C-alpha cells in the first residue's frame, strides 16, 4: 500500500463529537489502558450515530491512538456492533433451541411477511432491521425477541402486529 493510500484512509476519519469524546474519556478512567476502551468507544459512537461507519471507526482509532485494523477486528467480531447502517429499531430475534421448539420459525415467517425483510435487511421506510440473536435467556417465555432495548415475550402473530404498530407510533 502506497503512502498516499494510507494517508487518504487516515483522512477519512471523522472528528468525534464532544459528547462522544466526553463519554469515551469517562470510560478511560475505568480501564488501565486505551485499547480496552475500544469496544466501549464503538458502542458509544453507535449509540449516538446508530451504527459504526468507516469514518467513525477511523475516528475512534485516531482518538485512542490504536491500530484501526485491531479495532476493526473487534468491531466485526461482536454481534451488537453494527458496521452497516441499520433501521431506527433493531429487532434481535432469538432463534435458539427453546424458542425453536416453541415455534419461533413461524413467528419469524410472519415478521418476514409483515415487514418484507429477511435477516440482515432493513425495511424500505428505515423503521426496522431484523437480526438473529443467540438465546436471549428468557426461555420459559419463548418465543422472545428484543426491539431496541425492550424484550418481548410469548410472541404470537397478534403480538407481532401490536409491537410493530407501537414502535411505528412511537416515532411519529
Amino acid at each position, binding site marked *: 500500500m502506497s503512502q498516499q493510500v494510507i494517508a487518504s484512509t487516515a483522512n477519512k476519519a471523522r472528528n468525534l463529537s464532544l459528547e462522544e469524546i466526553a463519554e469515551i474519556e469517562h470510560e478511560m478512567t*475505568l*480501564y*488501565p*489502558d486505551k*485499547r*480496552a*476502551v*475500544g*469496544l*466501549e468507544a*464503538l*458502542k458509544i459512537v453507535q449509540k449516538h450515530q446508530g451504527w459504526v461507519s468507516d469514518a467513525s471507526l477511523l475516528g475512534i482509532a485516531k482518538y485512542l491512538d490504536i491500530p484501526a485494523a*485491531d479495532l476493526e*477486528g*473487534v468491531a466485526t*467480531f*461482536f*454481534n*451488537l*456492533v453494527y458496521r452497516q447502517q441499520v433501521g431506527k429499531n433493531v429487532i*434481535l430475534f432469538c*432463534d*435458539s*433451541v*427453546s424458542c*425453536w*421448539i*416453541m415455534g419461533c420459525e413461524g413467528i419469524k415467517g410472519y415478521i418476514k411477511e409483515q415487514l418484507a425483510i429477511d435477516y440482515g435487511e432493513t425495511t424500505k421506510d428505515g423503521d426496522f432491521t431484523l437480526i438473529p*440473536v*443467540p*438465546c*436471549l*435467556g*428468557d*426461555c*420459559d*417465555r*419463548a418465543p422472545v425477541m*428484543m426491539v431496541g*432495548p*425492550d*424484550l418481548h415475550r410469548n410472541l404470537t402473530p397478534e403480538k407481532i402486529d401490536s409491537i410493530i404498530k407501537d414502535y411505528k407510533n412511537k416515532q411519529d
Partner: protein
Amino acid sequence: MVANPLTKNIDMSRPPLDITAYEANDGYQSVHAIAKGLSPEDVLELVKGSGLKGRGGAGFPTGLKWSFVPRGDNSPKQKYLVVNADEMEPGTFKDRLLMEGDPHLMLEGMIIAAYTIQASKAYIFLRGEYTVSEQALRKAIKEAYERGYLGKNILGTGFDFDIIMHTSAGRYICGEETALLNALEGKRANPRAKPPFPQVSGLWGKPTIVNNVETLCNLPGILTYGVDWYHGLTKGNDHGTKLFGVSGKVKTPGCWELPLGLPIRELLEGYAGGMQDGLELKGFLPGGGSTDFMLPEHLDIVLDYDEIAKVGSRLATGTMIVLDDKTCPVGMVGNLMKFFAHESCGFCTPCRDGLPWVDQIFRDFENGEGSEKDLQILHDHVTYLGPGRTFCALAPGATAPLGSGLKYFKEDFEKHITQKRCSYKH
C-alpha cells in the same frame, strides 16, 4: 431457617428490593461479619468448607479456585474479580432472574469474593442484551457506594473495593473465561492458552478470579447463616440450593430455586407441570445446549453433579430443555449445531471448519438430502471435535447433544434418509 437463600427477596411482580429493604432481610450481614474480624483466610476456609461448586456450568469447587490466587506481600498488588454475567448458553435463563430480581445479593457476593482474594477492583461482564439487569445493577451499585459497602475502607476494614460495569456486545465464546478476559481487554474474544490460569495471570496479566453470577449469590448465605445451615439445605451429595429451569413444551415452564439432590421427575412433572396435553416426553438436555441428552428412563436420577455425570451428561447450568414426541430431534440438534457453528470464534481449525460442516449436513437432512455417508461424517465429528482436539471447550460442548442425539435418536436420523424428508413436518 431460610430455605431459599438465592430467591428469598425475589418477586418479579415488583421492582427489586432497595438497599434498606435488602438490609432489613439480613442483607449485607456478611460484610458486617467481615468488619467484625473475619480475615480473608477465615472466609476462604468457610467457602471451602461449604462445598460450593461453581454454578456457571463446569461445577469446579469455588473455594479451591480461589485458593490458587497468590497471597502475601510478594504477590502482585493488583488482583481482579470478574463476574461472568454473559449468560448465553442456549436454554439458560437463571442469572437474568438473579440480577433483575435481587441485584444486591450479587454485589454482596462480589464483596465477599473480592475480600477473600484481596481484589480491589471488579468488572461485571454483563451481556449487552440484558438491559433490565444493567439498570437494576447500576442502581444497586450506587446505593452500595452511598451506604459504604463499596469504595474506600469498607466499614473500617481498610479494604478498598470498586465495581465497574462492562456491558458486552454479544458472542457466546465470551462465556469462556479467558476469552472473556480478552474481550475485557478490548481484544477479539479468542480464548487463551492455559496454563497460565487466570487465577495466576488473568486480566492484564494480574491474578484474576472469574465467577458466575449464581455462584456469587451463594456466598452471602454461607457467611450470614453458616456452613452447617448451608449443608442442611441439600437433599443430595452436593451442597446448597440451585436455580433449576425448564423450557420447552411443558405445562408451566419456569425457573425455581430448589435443593440439590431432588429427583428430576419432581422438577419436570411437579414444578414444570409435566408435558402439555397430547405430548410425551422424548428426551431432555439437563443443563443447557452443551449437555448430553437424557431420556424418560432417567427421570428418577437426582439433580446432583455426580449423579447426572454417571449417565454421561452434566448438570451444568441446571436449566433443562425438554424435547417432546412431536418435535423433531434431528431439527433440535440441528438448531444447536447452527448456534455453535455461528458462535465459534474461528481460532482453531476443527471448530471453525468442523462445526459449519456439521451444520450444513443438518440442513441437508432437513431438506431430505441426508445420506448414510453424511451420518458417518456426523459420527466422525463427535470424535474430531471432542475434548482434547480443540483449543477450548466450545466444540466439545457441541459434541454433547450431537453424540447423544445420534445415539438416542438413531431411528429419526435413519428415517430422514430413507423417507427423504422430515416426517415431523405436516
